[in-house]
């Protein structure tokens, strides 16, 4: 089962590669009531304690598979389910420090059955609707 918040406490930790901390990951659930093909996703920025990580530098891991945002944009065969989290992997030398962090994630999904205006995704606003938006969770804890 997932946590009620879009941004999950669980799954938040630094990423270690070859003995070095190269970044961190954070898990999100979809806030849309239905799962989506990856090409329907409009991935956005991540902000941690005011530091911005641009949308196209983030790797999304869905069903155990890593995707760049460019790969997702063309992928209409793989699917993100509502009851499974996506893992966002973010490069940052040394990772995040031990203790609390405020995390913001932005993403949307296209919804063809609603008027076309619902599918205008702008990464630089805070607009949130049923099919996505900006989500923040404070005091996320790195051990």
């Amino acid at each position: 089962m997932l946590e009620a918040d879009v941004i999950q406490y669980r799954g938040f930790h630094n990423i270690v590669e070859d003995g070095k901390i190269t970044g961190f990951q954070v898990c999100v659930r979809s806030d849309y009531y239905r799962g989506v093909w990856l090409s329907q996703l409009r991935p956005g920025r991540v902000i941690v304690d005011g530091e911005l990580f641009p949308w196209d530098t983030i790797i999304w891991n869905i069903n155990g598979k890593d995707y760049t945002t460019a790969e997702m944009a063309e992928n209409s065969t793989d699917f993100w389910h509502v009851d499974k989290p996506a893992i966002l992997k973010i490069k940052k030398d040394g990772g995040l420090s031990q203790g609390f962090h405020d995390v913001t994630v932005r993403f949307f999904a296209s919804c063809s059955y609603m008027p076309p205006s619902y599918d205008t995704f702008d990464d630089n606003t805070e607009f949130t609707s049923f099919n996505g938006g900006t989500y923040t969770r404070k005091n996320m804890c790195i051990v």
Partner: protein
Amino acid sequence: MEKKIKRGVSIYSYSGEYGRTMDLEDCFKDMHDMGATGIEILANSHIDSYPVLSDEYLSKWKSLCETYQVEPAEYGHWIDTRLYKNRNMTGEEARRVLINDFQIANALGFHVLRTKMGVINGELAPFPEWKEVILSVLDEAAKYDVIMCPEIHLPSLLQDQFVLDYVDFINMTGTKNFGLNIDLSVFQNRFNVEGVVSYNQDTRHNEPEDIIPLLPYVKCIHAKFNRMDDDFNELTIPYPEIIRVLMDNGYEGYLISEYEGINKNVPGYVSHELRKQHVMMKRILGY
């Protein structure tokens, strides 16, 4: 009395809890409590192996239907025309997805599909190529014994041009594999009700008798509801009048509850609202 109109639930209603505080079996259990006999699932939400139907899911599905005495009533799926950021899906892509959904629906025991079309404007008119796409899969729909039903939903009206086009299409082709799903939101006639968010700014709506000429084409009805009071009345949609029209004019099929009100993510809230709505429907139906 023969029970021609049956009560069901779209488990879309539980979307604020699904995957968090409720799983698929919890939905079945809740429906069983209220004597609802038909379930609507959304393929894209409630099949955890979608777009594949896994053996595990299929066997769990059969066992849940049997345990809780619930039958497959409607299978929700989409023609996601705006599939990509920079282009729409092609007719061939639409065909592929549709046939895959027919196969899954058939395996799970569904005959009625809610086929959610991509739209092009604020009145929710479907994408212009819908006829070609639907024509291209009619043979497969017959083979898998399914009826595609686009949903007519607020702010659309029953007399909108595209609804007439659907009816013409059924008459011209003579197909048995295309019909209509009417969402009762088109009859919503109260908009300033506390705790109800209005998505219909100009408040245009249908009267209950407007559905009569469409009934031969209606394969499923979404019993949309926004707010129940504690005397078992729905506060925004004229249920007694609508159900009377359906009974008097021989509608046979499901009323599938779809909760669209507040507090969907409060554990238990929707289950309580559904119970109240089903008390209302039982009282009006007389069984």
